[in-house]
């Protein structure tokens, strides 16, 4: 068997290549750190896999923001050089890519992540290597890393204002429905406390409660797994739930499971008039994959809607469309593009970082974070956003009604809601009027 000799030599060769590869990699100079006129900025989103449909839009808006800034002279005189990597909806790969961005590319800042699990997987990396990440998507809170800035909506910038709105419209019964993962579970636990603090009795909160042995409620609401398609039973349950008076559904279902749910909902004869659904995960961009017609009249709550009428928003939308036409970046869809809250919060993040860098006169993460913590304001497409000491943003919250074209008609605006990540246990004060940020916020009817 001569074969063996070849095999062993191959093994040996492979081992040498391994060694050489690693050495070469280690010795390769990091060119970005040396050049003077550019600054490397990381873009860490899934461009493939299940999350690609949502996350590629964020990549696009970030590249647009970079081009806009570069055209006006860059940041501190340096042109932004984006380093785009693909996290591929693969969470360990996210951690690897974060390490690569920080260790090898030595990026000054990274914009990225959509799912909570991807953020959780890169968080230790950013903390260990003292990086800075801007996270743009609504999330469950309960987190405040010194190395992450959450431009995202905290629960009190989406869920509790939405409930406030429904209460103000006279709704008395709330059915909680979501996908079984941490964002819906946490949001609903907070909502349960919030609703009870507002005097809503337990029997008016639908979806079911789960208790541990000690009798503490550990889960509220109905949960279905990812990719669930059979909503017949749940919709029947909701229909029964609505019979007792003014009821609504608080929906934290994930992306594509919304299609069968809303289909079943319409088929059962439930409408926005009989029992409106408030969704927290459906924005304008989702209607590229969801039939908007079945959702007409249903409600959404975000800190930005494309239909906001302001000069900043008008210019933003026009410039983005112009940029889409002109860009020759590979893989960017040019037709039928819309903007939505996660995209605008990504965009805001870039400008907040730019301002902070300019105020700090340095790209140094510690100095930039110190400036951000002092409070930096930026008038973005969704209005003024201001950074807070707790790494979240003060911003306006909007309630919108879905239209057939996949846009939202704005019904109400809550101005300058302070982002608060730690909400669990905050609303325990039962029936006494709770002092909450959302309640403090000035509610004004939108013109």
């Amino acid at each position, binding site marked *: 068997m001569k074969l063996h000799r070849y095999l062993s030599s191959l093994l040996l060769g492979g081992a040498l290549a391994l060694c050489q590869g690693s050495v070469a990699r280690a010795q390769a100079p990091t060119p970005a750190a040396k050049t003077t006129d550019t600054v490397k900025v990381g873009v860490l989103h899934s461009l493939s896999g299940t999350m690609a449909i949502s996350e590629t839009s964020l990549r696009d808006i970030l590249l647009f923001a970079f081009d806009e800034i570069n055209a006006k002279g860059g940041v501190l005189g340096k042109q932004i050089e984006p380093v785009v990597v693909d996290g591929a909806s693969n969470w360990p790969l996210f951690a*690897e890519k974060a390490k690569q961005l920080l260790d090898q590319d030595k990026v000054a800042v990274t914009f990225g992540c959509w799912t909570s699990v991807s953020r959780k997987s890169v968080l230790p990396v950013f903390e260990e290597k003292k990086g800075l990440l801007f996270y743009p998507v609504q999330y469950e809170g309960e987190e405040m890393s010194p190395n992450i800035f959450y431009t995202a909506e905290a629960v009190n910038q989406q869920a509790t204002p939405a409930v406030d709105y429904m209460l103000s419209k006279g709704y008395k019964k709330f059915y909680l429905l979501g996908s079984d993962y941490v964002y819906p579970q946490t949001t609903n636990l907070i909502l349960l406390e919030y609703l009870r603090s507002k005097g809503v009795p337990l029997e008016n909160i639908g979806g079911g409660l789960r208790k541990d042995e000690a009798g503490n409620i550990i889960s509220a609401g109905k949960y279905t797994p990812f990719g669930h398609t059979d909503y017949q039973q749940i919709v029947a349950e909701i229909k029964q739930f609505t019979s007792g008076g003014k009821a609504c559904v608080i929906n934290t279902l994930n992306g594509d499971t919304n299609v069968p749910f809303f289909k079943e909902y319409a088929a059962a004869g439930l409408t926005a008039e009989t029992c409106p659904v408030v969704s927290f995960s459906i924005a304008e961009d989702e209607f590229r994959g969801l039939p908007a017609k079945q959702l007409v009249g249903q409600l959404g709550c975000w800190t930005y809607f494309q239909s906001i009428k302001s000069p900043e928003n008008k210019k933003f939308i026009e410039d983005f469309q112009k940029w889409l036409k002109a860009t020759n970046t590979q893989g960017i869809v040019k037709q039928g593009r819309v903007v939505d809250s996660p995209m605008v919060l990504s965009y805001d993040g870039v400008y907040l970082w730019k301002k902070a860098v300019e105020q700090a006169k340095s790209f140094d993460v510690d100095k930039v974070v110190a400036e951000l913590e002092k409070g930096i304001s930026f008038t973005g497409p969704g209005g003024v956003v201001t950074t807070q000491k707790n790494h979240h943003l003060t911003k306006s919250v909007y309630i919108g009604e879905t239209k057939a074209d996949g846009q939202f008609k704005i019904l109400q605006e809550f101005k300058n809601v302070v982002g608060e990540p730690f909400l669990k246990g905050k609303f325990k004060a039962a029936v006494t009027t709770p002092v909450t940020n959302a309640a403090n916020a000035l509610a004004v009817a939108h013109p």
Partner: protein
Amino acid sequence: MRRNFSRSELIAVGVIALLGLIVLPALNSAGLISNFAINLWGKYLCYAVLAISVDLLWGYTGLLSLGQALFFSLGGYMLGMHLMLMIGKLGQYKSDLPDFMVFLGYTSLPTFWQPFRSFLFAALMILAVPGLLSGVFGYLAFRSRIKGVYFSILTQALTYAGSLMFFRNDLLMGGNNGFTDFKLLLGLDLRTPGVQRGLFIATVALLLLVYLGCRWLTMTKFGLVQRAVRDSETRVLFSGYAAANYKLFIFVLAAIIASLGGALYVPQVGIINPSEMTPDKSLEAVVWCAVGGRGTLFGPVLGAISVNALKSWATRAYPDSWLIILGGLFILVVLFLPGGIASVPGLLARTMRRRKKSDEPIAAVPATAVSAATEA
């Protein structure tokens, strides 16, 4: 049939051992190899261990298991449970409980988590849990004479069921987010380069042990029966061997090997969550095996390393088209290199011999024909 290790193979293994256990870590501590590279290679080598486990089943026994990712993840979860408890008050909530339990409103540690405070117990569970699961599953499957594509489908269903189960928050295994943000292992800070280097060395050692162990096994009489099962199970049965027992042993062994790889993978990668046990992760491991060359044991190692290195590079260099690059490569390998990377030297040698043959005078032909016949 060779019944012992060839000298050249032992030399090759020795050289790799020297490189992986001493030279590379030394270069790393001297600063010549970056911590990032060491960490990345540690991850590749964990995947290589998984690939060997797939090869043991698929390449040597003809069992195409699509459930190896489950055992890999279970190993990771078992060590992960210990690591979660070792975070202690360093977590987000400064609580003794893992963060996700505080999140869900738990005030005391559930009973089945208690013993995982002990590293030894966790280490035992890394072997026991996948071992038992594969034992029960394998016993039922092989007793029922489930084979071929049905076996693949069943194992795929098993890992899918596992992922669905772990996705649920009720299971108290971290749900969708899984375990992350580890701090300490055996009292050492996981985030320091020294500990990561140690984990790399441990991974190299595990890979070498697994490789040598599996090589040895395939050279024994057991290995012969194993291959006989692959080639014609019915004949093995007629010859009086209990093929099911052989298969069960291999299945359990492969599960434990995968689990060990997973256990070393988690502290190096820093996260374990249910998407690691979805069927496509198992399929990925099968692809590494096919690309490297199945039924060779070292081919899958090459496959795991090269495919993952390519993936690391391409997701950075061509974030938009890396899937096409990788997919194209797989197609090319399947079309033109059915034996995988491992078959390349053999192919080269054959072409060279053929060329030599045509160069030589006619009188020499019988001699080469004889040697070719003996080799075949």
